Structure formats: C-alpha cells, structure tokens
C-alpha cells in the first residue's frame, strides 16, 4: 500500500460506524451491519462503482438496513445517497450543500457537480484525533475529504486497513471475506440455447445471504446439518446462460426472467449482521416444556401461537408448529419463534417475539424478567421460562 501514500485523500475520526473506501465508491454502514460490511468490502475494494455498490447495498431490501452513506465520484459528478442517522456536508461550485439521511423515510439522493470538500458525520465519536487514510476498511464517526488540516498525528501507511477493527470477531469475518464473490459466476461462457434466467447482472451481487453458507471457523465439530443444497432436482446447476433470444421465451405474458436469481436472495430471519442460523440441527439444542405438558425438541425452528403458520420456508427446513390455547385471544396467532442459534448463540436455542400483540416475557435464571423486543433474538439458558400470557409458559431445559 506504500504506493498509495501520495494518494491519501481524506481523514477520518475513529468511531463506531464502518467506513469502506474503494477506488470508485465510499460506503459507510452502522455498527449493526458487520456481515454486510464484509461483503461490500469485497466489491468496493475491487473497484465497484455507484450502481453496483448501491445494488449490493439494497439487494436484500431496505427494511433491515437502518442507515448507510454511499458516495461515488465520476467525471466531476459526485453522487450521494444517505439513509438513516447520517449527515453530509459538501462545498460545491454552486455553494454549500447539507444532507441529512434522517429527513427521508427511504433515503436522500443527490447528484452534485464540482465538489471541492466533503464532510460526513455518522454515529458517536470515540476519538478526538483525525487520522489520514487512502483506502480500506475502518471504524469511524467522521470523514473529511480532503483531509482536515494538520491531523494530530501522521498515520503511517493507512494502518487501519482491514485488519484490526473487524478481525476481532472471527465468526463474522471468516465466512464473509473468504467467500469468493458470487460463485454462480462459474463458466459464463458455457452458454446454452436456453434463454432462461440468463444473467446480465451476474457479477454484481455477492448476495449477502450467501454469507452463512459455508460457515467455517468453528473449532468444535459442527452439530448442524449444513443446509443441504437440496439435490433432488434433476437438472445440473448450470451457469445461467448469457443473453439469448428472450424475445422468443414469452407466451404473450409470463416470461422467464433474464435475471440472476441469486441477485435477489432474501435475507433469512435471524440476527441482523450475523450469519443465518443453521435451520435444522442434527441434534436438538434445547427442549421446550409447555405448560400443557407437551415437550418439543428444538432441532429446527419452532413457531408457537394461538394458530401458528409458517411462511416461505424451503422443503428441507419445515418449521414445527405448536398451537397453544388462548381462549381470550391474548396470544397472537403466530406469537414467537424458538430456533437453534447461530454465531455467538451456536449450540443453544434463541427465542424471538414475532411482533405479537401482547408481547412475551422471558425470565432467565438469575436475571430479572425481560420483555422481548419484537424481532430481536435472545439466547435461552436452560431453566429459562418464556411467558406468552394467558397462563401459557414454556420452560427451557437441556435436551
């Protein structure tokens, strides 16, 4: 990186957010988006531009992406997209421009000409000195471009690159960064006459969901069955053929798309920023004892409620539905989910309130009762008691 010394173009102030600085794009992401950061780092560092980076950012939807900043400059034009709790100020040929992501429900987008100076502020500062930077991946709270005058200390060689801030959490770092971008790239040239799902956009999306697929990095023998890339289907997984007469593959209306399906992989429910949980484990991680006396082992997702239903699962990971009585309908139809945990929760069960009307109270041994936050998974300790209301409780024991 020493040849980049004279390219040091900006300074940053340490903080909580992630900053990804590539040749053509700058992306800032909140602390919760660690998994996404690693995936984005790969493409941004490889020189991804505005469109490609934005596609990757929003590939899994906006709902679980609380905030981000994307800045990209080409040919004198600076494109900026800001969402959530982030602010940016620019000095342009037409005067100063200030943007605040919190002012829009989706995002603020602006195209600026002749930008001479940029300042972006995100999250809280955890340091007061500004460090210089060429490119890389850092934790920050503020970026100035060009660098703020006289940073307190000269940083040698853009030291924060990729290494220290992120590596601390191996379970996220490994699967993400090591994963080659978008495997289906394969032999693109192996075209066939079949105009099916061809991929003009093949190279663009390192579908963030692919992250957990490999889940290396556990030292103990894994007790989960690696999500079997379900084999029963006959056709070999050919690389999507490129182009081809899409004109002919219509029946007047419905057409097969010439889109790479992996481009739109949906985010699994689970903990944002962590690899998706192994959906089905080889042996149960916990046993649930219901107040009715029923016992259910947690070796897959268990959905509990007054009339629970399961939506959008695959044939190999069918959840178990457990109906509990609720004469006054105080328990929601699909109230909560217990599933085998992943990442830091690997080997134990986690409970998630699925946005129930009247909420869920969790009592863990030695801890005060806790109201579950909807959508936030909480690790279950043996001895924990989950209270759904109307006298329905679930006790967690070892399997």
């Amino acid at each position, binding site marked *: 990186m020493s040849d980049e010394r004279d390219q040091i173009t900006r300074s940053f102030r340490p903080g909580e957010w992630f900053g990804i600085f590539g040749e053509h794009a700058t992306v800032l992401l909140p602390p919760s988006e660690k998994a996404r950061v690693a995936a984005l780092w790969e493409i941004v560092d490889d020189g991804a531009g505005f469109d490609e980076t934005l596609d990757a950012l*929003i*590939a*899994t*939807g*906006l*709902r679980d992406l609380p905030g981000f900043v994307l800045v990209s400059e080409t040919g004198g034009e600076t494109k900026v997209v800001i969402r959530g709790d982030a602010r940016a100020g620019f000095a342009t040929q037409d005067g100063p421009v200030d943007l605040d992501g919190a002012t829009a429900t*989706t995002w603020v987008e602006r195209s600026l000409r002749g930008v001479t100076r940029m300042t972006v502020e995100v999250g809280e500062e955890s340091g007061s000195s500004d460090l210089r930077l060429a490119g890389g991946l850092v934790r920050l709270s503020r970026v100035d471009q060009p660098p703020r005058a006289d940073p307190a200390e000269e940083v040698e060689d853009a030291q924060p690159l990729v290494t220290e801030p992120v590596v601390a959490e191996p379970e996220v770092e490994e699967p993400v960064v090591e994963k080659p971008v978008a495997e289906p790239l394969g032999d693109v040239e192996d075209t*066939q*006459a*079949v*105009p*099916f*799902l061809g991929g003009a956009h093949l190279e663009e999306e390192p579908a963030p969901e692919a992250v957990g697929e490999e889940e290396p990095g556990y030292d103990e023998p894994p007790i989960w069955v690696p999500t079997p890339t*379900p084999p*029963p*289907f*006959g*056709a070999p*997984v*050919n690389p*999507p*053929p490129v182009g*081809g*007469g899409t004109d*002919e*593959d*219509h*029946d*007047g*209306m*419905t*057409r*097969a*798309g*010439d*889109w790479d*399906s992996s*481009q*739109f992989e*949906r985010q699994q429910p689970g903990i944002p920023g962590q690899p998706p949980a192994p959906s089905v484990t080889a042996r149960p991680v916990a046993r649930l004892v219901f107040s009715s006396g029923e016992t259910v082992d947690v070796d897959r997702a268990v959905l509990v409620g007054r*009339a*629970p*239903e*399961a*939506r*959008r*699962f*695959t*044939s*190999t990971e*069918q*959840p*178990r*539905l*457990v*109906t509990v*009585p609720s*004469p006054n309908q105080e328990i929601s*139809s699909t109230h909560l989910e217990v599933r085998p945990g992943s990442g830091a929760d690997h080997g134990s069960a986690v409970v998630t309130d699925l946005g129930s009307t009247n909420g869920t109270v969790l009592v863990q041994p030695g801890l005060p009762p806790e109201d579950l936050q909807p959508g936030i998974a909480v690790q279950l300790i043996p001895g924990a008691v989950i209270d759904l209301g109307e006298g329905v409780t679930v006790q967690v024991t070892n399997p």
Partner: protein
Amino acid sequence: MTEQFRGVELHHGAATDVGLVREVNEDSFLAAPPVFVVADGMGGHESGDVASAIVVEEFGRLADEGYDARRGAEVVAATLGTCQERIAEFGAAHRARGTRSFYAGTTAVVALLVEDDEGPKWLLANLGDSRIYRFADGVLDQVSVDHSLVQELVDAGTITAADAATHPERHVITRALGGPDRAEADYFLLPLPSVERLLLCSDGVTGMIDDATMAEILGRAADPRDAADQLVAAAVQAGGRDNATAVVVDVVGLATENSYDSERQRVSLEQKLGALP
C-alpha cells in the same frame, strides 16, 4: 380422499379460459382433493401447455396413489423435481431436433393437505408468479410471494406495490420449472381453521382484476364452483390479455377429534356442567 383426512371435507371449483388475446391456453390445473394445482406454462409453440400439463400429471399421480402426509414438503419437492426433469428432457429433446431456441417452462402453485402432531394443515408451495390467496372473515390475504422481478424490486424498496402492477417487466419471473437451474419452491404451512377458502390462480386472473374485485367475488359466491367461474369471467371481461385460471377450495367440514375449537367447547361445557356430557 386419503384415509387420514376423513374428518376434513373439501368443496372445490375450478375454471380456466384462454382469454381474448392468446390462441392457446397454456394454463393447466388439478383439482383432485386433497391436492390442488395451478400451472401457467411458458414457451409458446405448444411447449408451455405441455410443461404445465406435466405438472398436473405428476401431482395427479400423487392424489391417485396417496402420499405420506407427514412428509408433505419432501413429497412436493420430490414431485416438483420430477416435473423439472421431465420438462427439461422435453425441452432438450426438441433442441436436439434442431429447434435451438426451444424451451418449455411453467410456474406452479400447489396446495395439499398434510398432517403433523396437531392434525391436518394446508401445505402450500409456489414457484413463479401464479398465486395462492387465503380468504377468511371477508379478508383476502395473499399467501404466496411471487418469484418475479417486480416483487424483488418491491422487496428491495426500489418500487412500490402500486408501481408493480404497471411495471413494464411485470411478467418477468425469477423462478420456474423447466429452466437450466434447479428452482427451489417456497413453502407455507397454514392451520386449517384459519382458511375458510383457498384460491389458486394464474397471473391471467391477478393481472386483470384487483384484490378488491377478487375479494368481492369470493365473498359473494357461496359455491366455490361459482366463485371460480366468476373470477375467470371477470378477468376475461377486464380484457383477457392472458390465460386465466382459478381453483377455489372451501374447507367445509373439520371434525378432527381434538381440533382446537372442539377442545375449547369441551372445556367450556365441562365448566358449565361441572362434568363432561
């Protein structure tokens, strides 16, 4: 009807129409309780109708020969796998004979009764942009999520659901049977009591009439046969730009021994009488 679902009584109706624009009806459907399918074939030149017919044939075999109701998702996945193989072979055979650009594909929505420890449930499966709706208490609820470009754009927040109805690429689907890639279906599991009426339909229906119209028809037509007829007729009347197919299934009898409602009644009777009757 399979032995174990004796307590469940299903009434159904089905209708299909080529529409006003197309020459061939490439939709196929199966209504063989407890298995129901709608498939919307693609490819033209007598290939889409073959593809959708293959799906109906394979699931018809399931209905005839019975299946393991406790392994519903596996059963459906295996059957879809067989369909995929057959459609791919059919396409390959045509290409081998020189029609290089030939291909056949189809969407599929499937509903069948399965069973777990608690009793019978609806297992639903979806590949493509045909749809499954639940109609209960006068409310229409789309259960399946389209595998279509516009749905992905909606999910990504790029466009709104309203934009999707008029988007130029709204007929482009991202998963189907018959492509070179194995396409995994999405599955859904619903408790029977939550579903008074189930609707399976092709995009020739949903693309022509809106949800409010569909809900109005489903609420008005008591007989599922009338409901299916009227849905398809309304789609044709609205322009009939594509083949339109609807299968409507009503759960009319639910007499499992320990269903939730009967359990509740038993308990409340016990409380009132002080003893079981």
